[in-house]
């Protein structure tokens, strides 16, 4: 068993509003290991980003109620005072975001911004910090790193900015890197470059990566472990090959079915009817039941537990395992043209 880096236990995030409580994340638990890429997938409002912002201590405690614990090398990120969290954030756990342009200060040179990240957690002279910045820009594949470090963000392309953000995240060799939709704003050829870079960085720096995305294709290509979220809860969790070979949750089936494939033209895309629920007026029982074509009596009243499946992964659904296997095998597999 590989070393566990981050242990999230029962994480809940609630935003109280005048209309009622917005339950963004409910009772989320997972473990991230060294050298592992954990893919968190879900639609907008599924809580995938909010859960990570909570780990990073980036949610305003006056506006959000956060429960549970998140252990990073023995320390609970969720109960640390802001000062101590500041020492950890960017040093032991770092995050990159969807829009790299919004994350870089437009009026400072890229190299200087990375150098600033160096001095934030370490005593270093300017020249040492700058040297480290250039080194990292080189490591993330910026050509002529020494010259480009003197550029301003607007002189970088989208892909290069994301590379610069990754460089900045790596400054202090964090053990966990959270990438929140890192390629969503990028073109597909550049997306391929960045995904390869994240994979390489993970190997070379020997870290754990949490990759948040709405794109199951990205997950299938990069993640070893997958967490499927819906309306703030984990619906399915397990090793990627297991989860894609024999998905157990009707929501996962829906996601897979509605994904347009490049392999062939489908007669009809199997859309999930309706739209994700309001987090204020959450449906009773299983939050997915109003959209689930397989829902039956208990689904409307009882929240299903996460259950261990024979394949080794966890699933939150009332359907008996036997019938789920049959459904997936018979209907879904045939429709998707996925063998076995």
């Amino acid at each position, binding site marked *: 068993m590989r070393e566990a880096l981050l242990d999230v236990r029962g994480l809940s995030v609630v935003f109280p509003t005048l209309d009622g409580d917005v339950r963004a994340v409910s009772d989320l638990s997972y473990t991230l290991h060294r050298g592992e890429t954990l893919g968190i997938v879900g*639609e907008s409002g599924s809580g995938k980003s909010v859960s990570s912002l909570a780990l990073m201590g980036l949610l305003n405690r006056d506006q959000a109620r956060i429960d549970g614990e998140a252990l990073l090398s023995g320390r609970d990120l969720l109960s640390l005072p802001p000062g101590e969290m500041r020492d950890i954030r960017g040093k032991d756990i770092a995050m990159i975001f969807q829009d790299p342009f919004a994350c870089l200060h437009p009026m400072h040179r890229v190299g200087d911004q990375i150098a600033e990240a160096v001095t934030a957690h370490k005593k270093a002279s300017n020249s040492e910090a700058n040297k480290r910045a250039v080194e990292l820009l080189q490591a993330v594949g910026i050509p002529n790193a020494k010259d480009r470090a003197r550029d301003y963000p607007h002189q970088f392309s989208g892909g290069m900015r994301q590379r610069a953000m990754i460089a900045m995240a790596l400054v202090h060799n964090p053990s966990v890197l959270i990438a929140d939709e890192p390629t969503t704003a990028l073109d597909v050829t550049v997306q*391929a470059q960045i995904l390869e870079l994240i994979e390489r960085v993970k190997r070379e720096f020997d870290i754990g990566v949490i990759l948040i995305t709405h794109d199951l294709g990205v997950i299938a290509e990069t993640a070893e472990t997958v967490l499927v979220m819906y309306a703030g809860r984990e619906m399915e969790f397990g090793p990627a090959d297991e989860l894609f070979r024999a998905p157990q949750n009707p929501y996962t089936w829906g996601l897979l079915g509605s994904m347009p494939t490049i392999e062939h033209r489908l007669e009809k895309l199997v859309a999930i009817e309706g*739209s994700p629920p309001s987090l204020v007026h959450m449906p009773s029982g299983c939050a997915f039941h109003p959209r689930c074509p397989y829902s039956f009596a208990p689904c409307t009243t009882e929240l299903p537990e996460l259950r261990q499946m024979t394949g080794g992964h966890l699933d939150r659904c009332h359907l008996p395992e036997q019938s789920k296997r049959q459904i997936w095998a018979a209907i879904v597999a045939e429709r998707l043209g996925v063998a076995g």
Partner: protein
Amino acid sequence: MRVSNEAIIELEHVTKHFPVSQGVFSRGRSRVHAVEDVTLTVHKGETLGIVGESGCGKSTTARLMLRLLDPTAGTIRFEGRDISKLSNRQLRPLRREMQMIFQDPYASLNPRKTVEQIVGQPFAVHKVVGSREAKLRVKELLDVVGLSREHASRYPHEFSGGQRQRIGIARALALNPKLIVCDEPVSALDVSVQAQILNLLRSLQEEFNLTYVFISHDLSVMRQICTRIAVMYLGRVVELADSERIFEHPRHPYTAVLISAVPRLSADGRKRQRIVVGGDVPSPIDPPSGCVFHPRCPRSRAGHCDSVEPHLEPTPGESSHIAACHYPLEHWPTDVTELRTGAARAVSHTE
């Protein structure tokens, strides 16, 4: 789907340049070469996809088709009639025939108008029916796009992204257009909702015999909806063929790179061979010499690709499949290995 050979839109050697000012003291003006010598025909009943990365000119091309932009050079014809120099006023009756669906369903609906006003707006603008009949038609249109009639009195903020996109579609359908340009209509939507909208667009096409021009950067979506696909790069069409041929027998290395870059689910869990090209799309202000793709191309040859611009040539034995490449791919996907080594070479070259 009834695809005829009759053209609805023809672009002939259409070019669009945008001037860019380069500060107070600069002399002369440089231009963004947004669309460069594009010749393209949209047939009645088809879905022509235009695919490419940001800045490739796909949206500009579509806006030129609708004459929302004036071409710098070239001819645009709608149903055989030259519309490239028509004034706005002369264009007005034609606007009924061509409509557009936009990417962002949040930005493209007026937040202060009800659904009824939004969907009914085209009737008011073109004065085709009276207000009482317009109200009835709006209700019918809401049915058609899968919204309920009670929605008519609500405001856009009360709807989800997918529902808003349905409102946009209803508005586009209002005047029974012949052509609808869909500019990234599903990119802002969640996958589960994306599929609903794609299915809706497909069935509406059958029902109303519509012609679509479908712009997207997402090849998987393209494969589901397009009959023919034009691949654009830096303002040029680099390949054009039936959808099936684009995916099964791509000729242009750029098309191959695009297809291979799409992340996908592999049923057996094996790692796929991905061609990763280095660098970014060059600036359209100062496009590369020769073939515009040559600095990133895994197959480019010095002394030829960097100096001679390739023209769109038909594929032997498949004249409707055209590609602009000096060294087009002959096999697919068997060329993947070759392309990967070539790409690695190109990367080390650019870095």
